[in-house]
């Protein structure tokens, strides 16, 4: 009879239990992770080198100026997208927010004669409110954010078409508020400083703040986060709102740069932003991703667009290249993951 189980002669109380089965594993993983973050930097450098060979204008001062002046519009959206994807959701409506929110700003300022700063605030609040609606529908009703934001993408695009009746809306480029976000400091585009600034703030949040930790664990394992008392719905809604606000600001920056807004602005931006995020190594399944990766992903996507223009290739190639690179990048990550498990 197995009375008392297999442990008839009980060993002395065990203070320390050895469960190790893989001593070298941790170090190897660490190396892969290091490699992962460094690899995206290397991939970026390789791309830039190839582009420099394709066109000698690529690394010219004028071209680099154009890149750092226009890239922040995608980059600022991609930063917010990264946070939201890490939290386990994503947002297809950013392109519509990018068009609608600045349109409201321009109408308030140009047509209604409102104060420029109040108009910009209204733009940001509109973006955050759109994010809040996305977040509330997704978390409280419990439908996938893909469906929620597919709906709001079309709805808000319709709204901006309706407001604009298809006509562009002008905005005075020389207003101080426009200079503050899209002007120059001794020839250097201000929007790039904002872009890097936001990336640093989000990096600090993710790496060094409780909110970042909650964002990672909410996306990584929602049930566990709930069990540990983390308000996962609130975490997701805040990330939706941050992305909405950043998309609105990015749209405003484009309007400041061009001096007018278009109802079709930001079409396809959602896929570029998601593309920049996943190229940078953020997993669509949530719980994992870095700001450095997204920064590199943005540079890659933006440089492809730029090199196609420079090399006078048909612009249609842009999407084809992006598509191929997204697949290659994500495949690489899956392969790295596969090796891990």
């Amino acid at each position, binding site marked *: *009879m197995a*009375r008392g189980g297999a442990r008839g002669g009980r060993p002395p109380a065990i203070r320390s*239990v050895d469960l190790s089965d893989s001593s070298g594993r941790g170090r190897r993983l660490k190396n892969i992770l290091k490699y992962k973050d460094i690899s995206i930097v290397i991939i970026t450098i390789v791309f830039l080198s190839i582009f420099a060979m394709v066109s000698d204008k690529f690394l010219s001062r004028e071209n680099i100026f154009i890149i750092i002046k226009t890239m922040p519009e995608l980059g600022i959206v991609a930063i917010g997208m990264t946070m939201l994807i890490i939290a386990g959701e994503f947002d297809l409506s950013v392109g519509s927010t990018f068009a609608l929110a600045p349109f409201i700003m321009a109408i308030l300022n140009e047509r209604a004669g409102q104060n420029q700063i109040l108009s910009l605030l209204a733009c940001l609040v509109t973006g955050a409110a759109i994010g809040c609606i996305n977040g509330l529908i997704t978390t409280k009703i419990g439908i996938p954010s893909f469906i929620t934001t597919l709906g709001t993408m079309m709805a808000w695009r319709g709204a901006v078409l309706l407001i604009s009746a298809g006509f562009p809306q002008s905005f005075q480029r020389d207003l101080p508020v426009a200079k503050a976000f899209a002007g120059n400091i001794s020839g250097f585009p201000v929007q790039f400083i904002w872009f890097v600034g936001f990336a640093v703030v989000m990096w600090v949040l993710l790496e060094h703040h409780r909110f970042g930790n909650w964002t990672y664990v909410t996306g990584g394992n929602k049930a566990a986060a709930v069990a*540990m008392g983390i308000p996962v719905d609130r975490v997701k809604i805040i990330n939706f709102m941050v992305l909405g606000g950043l998309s609105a600001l990015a749209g405003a920056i484009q309007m400041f740069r061009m001096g007018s807004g278009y109802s079709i602005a930001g079409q396809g931006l959602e896929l570029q932003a998601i593309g920049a995020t996943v190229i940078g190594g953020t997993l669509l399944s949530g719980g994992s991703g870095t700001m450095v990766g997204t920064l590199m992903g943005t540079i890659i996507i933006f440089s492809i667009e730029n090199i196609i223009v420079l090399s006078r290739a048909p612009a249609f190639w842009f999407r084809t290249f992006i598509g191929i690179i997204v697949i290659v990048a994500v495949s690489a990550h899956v392969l790295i993951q596969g090796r891990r498990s």
Partner: protein
Amino acid sequence: MNEPDKGAPLYRLVGISKSFGPVEALKNIDMEVRAGEIIGLVGDNGAGKSTLIKILSGIYPPDSGQILYNGEVKRIGSYRDSQALGIATIYQDRALVDSVSIYRNIFMGSELVHPAGFLDKKTMRKDATKVMRESISIGIESSDQLVGDLSGGQKQAVAIARAIYFRARLLLLDEPTNALSVKESRQVMAFVESLKEEGISSIFVTHNLLHVHSIADRFTILSHGEKVGDFEKRDISMEKLERLIVTGKNEEV
């Protein structure tokens, strides 16, 4: 907090009932847990074991009945309430996040922070390493390692280490050995057993009677939401335990 004497129950459940619509999941259950005691909570599928665990961990409120801690009536309405009473639930795989590091897992939801919510990573890393070293040496080199890279047994150990760090007095282990290898199961059980010395109690829910019989001091048997009985280990054999679970009747009482 008064230190209870060894014999007095630390936790007492009195007349706990819970229904889900027409289904009576638990009917008038009484249960006691003393300090440093391991209780095997056993019963067939649908006996109500998981419901009872979820009531203790604050996921469901009971419809009626009382929970006493050190003789005082307490309400467990949320995970926080449960944690405040020193109860920690160790789920098989649900309690950890694979994509983040060990120390971020240990402090998940209870992060140590500087003012304005900035993480005190230095102390978290140090404390995580310390609790892993002192209570369980599980072949983990660094608290920066991702939990997703650990084995099943190591993950359990991390979850238990988290509970110990936050001064748990009662571990609720719901099918802890389900997905583990034989060797790992044994190690986890030995670890739980070693915690008795520190006065940490455990409720061990499992289908594996062999596992539970080897380490439990006492058994509480449930069947179809009702309690079949409480038995000290010395009073019950594996065969009888198995018979009681299958029949759901305690003929000898």
